[in-house]
């Protein structure tokens, strides 16, 4: 028995040893897929000598699950607005020391004191965008203006929804004339019924390569986050992005440091780095998404700065919903989503 004990002890020592040998400064980033360009990460690594690794996710919930499960190993995460609220309530984020972020002053006025994180205590906005739909004019003959098109049987089998509970409910609620992010049980139930009904004509749920689906014509219409399709819009003039007249939604993704992060200094350095106008501009240009740094917007090429899929016209932005943490109503969404997913 003693032998096994010793073996176990030596094995764990060996394992611990490998974890301790890392010498250079490191940074482990966990960010939204296709939002943080690899080139920016490489530039930062070159400039600072920090060893950076990046993993990506396509839903806030996946990231939250990893953080709440304990030691995730990540030093920097990129939550959306309501996710910041949930993570703060769970005590999973580090309160930011603004003295370490001199470039924070570059933040645009609209993003300086956001409702979900007053005073930027836990997160620093990075980019913003909208949730709407994209269609391919090869099979959609008249321009689409409403979510209702995603319920239209003439597109049967060629409509894809985001495989993301809260995103799907934006369409489910708004198609009923309701607001996304509601906590009202009857409204959520109504949306659930609409989403179940929609399932008959769906090709599927997809939140990873929906841009390719609509570009290739596999799908006629896909529900979409604008930042994931802006690149495709450039390459394929037949694909159009629309914020539906019912409103659509706006989101802000920003950087935050998990409570158990090991390389906190490197994380601060990265946040500060990406707030430099020229870096923010390069990131926005590469990812084709809207920057929160005003001085960076001025540096953008015209085709990005004037792209309506990236910077929607003001009248559209007036109508968008902004999803905040729904608290206990989350359970209603989850039960509803399970019903949607299991409906035949």
């Amino acid at each position, binding site marked *: 028995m003693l032998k096994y004990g010793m073996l176990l002890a030596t094995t764990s020592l060996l394992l611990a040893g490998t974890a301790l040998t890392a010498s250079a400064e490191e940074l482990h980033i966990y960010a939204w897929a296709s939002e943080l360009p690899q080139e920016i990460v490489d530039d930062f690594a070159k400039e600072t000598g920090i060893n950076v690794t990046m993993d990506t996710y396509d839903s806030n919930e996946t990231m*939250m*699950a990893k953080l709440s499960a304990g030691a995730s190993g990540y030093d920097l995460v990129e939550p959306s607005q309501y996710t910041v609220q949930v993570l703060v309530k*769970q005590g999973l984020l580090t309160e930011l020391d603004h003295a370490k972020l001199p470039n924070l002053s570059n933040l645009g006025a609209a993003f300086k004191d956001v409702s979900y994180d007053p005073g930027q205590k836990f997160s620093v906005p990075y980019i913003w965008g909208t949730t709407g739909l994209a269609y391919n004019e090869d099979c959609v003959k008249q321009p689409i203006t409403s979510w209702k098109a995603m319920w239209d049987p003439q597109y049967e089998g060629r409509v894809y929804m985001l*495989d993301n509970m809260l995103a799907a409910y934006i369409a489910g609620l708004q198609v009923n004339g309701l607001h996304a992010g509601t906590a009202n049980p009857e409204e959520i139930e109504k949306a659930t019924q609409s989403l179940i009904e929609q399932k008959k004509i769906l*090709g*599927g749920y*997809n939140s990873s390569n929906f841009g390719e689906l609509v570009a290739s014509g596999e799908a006629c219409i896909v529900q979409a986050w604008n930042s994931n399709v802006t690149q495709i819009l450039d390459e394929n003039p037949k694909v159009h992005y629309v914020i539906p007249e019912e409103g659509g939604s706006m989101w802000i993704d920003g950087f935050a440091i998990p409570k158990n992060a090991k390389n906190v200094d490197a994380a601060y350095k990265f946040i500060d780095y990406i707030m430099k106008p020229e870096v923010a501009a390069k990131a926005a240009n590469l990812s084709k998404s809207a920057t929160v740094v005003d001085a960076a917007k001025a540096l953008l090429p015209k085709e990005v700065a004037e792209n309506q899929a990236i910077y929607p016209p003001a009248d559209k932005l007036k109508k968008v919903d902004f999803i905040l943490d729904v608290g206990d109503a*989350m359970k209603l969404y989850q039960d509803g989503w399970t019903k949607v*997913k*299991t409906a035949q």
Partner: protein
Amino acid sequence: MRNRRQNVITLLLLAPSLVMAILLLAIPLLVVIAYSFAGRDSYGGVVTGFTLESYVELFQPAYLPIFVNSLKIAAMSTAVCVLIGYPIAYFIAFRAGKHSGLLLALLLIPFWIDFMIRMSSWMVLMGRNGTINGALTGAGIIDEPIRMIGTYPAVMVGMLYAFLPTTVLPIYAALSGINRRLLEAADDLGAGPVEAFWRVTFPLSLPGVMAAMLFVFVPAMGVYAIPVLLGGGKSIILGNLIVQLFLDFRNIPLGAAVSVVMLVLSSVIIVFYMRMLRRLEEAHA
């Protein structure tokens, strides 16, 4: 004395794999079981303690369709795999002659490629502008591309492709072990090829068939990628439910409870099956 020394040596040789099995299999399994009895707060945190909440929630009507659907898809996949795998195994065992080694190797080569890549390739093959539709429209067989991705048959194709090798191998093993003289005897006694197959070959290959069915049925219930990639995520099974509960809903206790139920379910099936298999083998002996 010598015996004891041999035992010690055996134990020492086994130690690395034992440690691995305990660290990587037994402990995680116990952790999952412990989680399934834990409570949870509304923000997805796990509250340690003992409660049956998750198991009670699991038996709500909302989750029942997923269990039924999983069993259906697993049963259908098993049937399809055995129906297609048996003739292949038969051909390799009885008709391929000196090429049988090569055929077996060809069957196994796809295993060298990552599972996700193989499944993504099927998305390319079955896409609207994919290879299959391209060939069919090019040959003038169809005018409009057929929709394949996001349908039930596409899921079955994925399952068949994923599990065919694990079906063919045990059936092949059973078939190649059959004493050929028994077939000659059947012939001498006036049985035609069909009768000889049903009365001699098939019964003797049954243990292989049953093993193959088990190798398909149990993992098929937990497959995650195939329903998502080829089925469009519309018809979810237990594997998808577990991912949804752990990652999307951050409901670790409920996700753990589903895993435990699935573990019990497959264990029961395996035990029941092994018993039947043993009875079958005894009957032949």
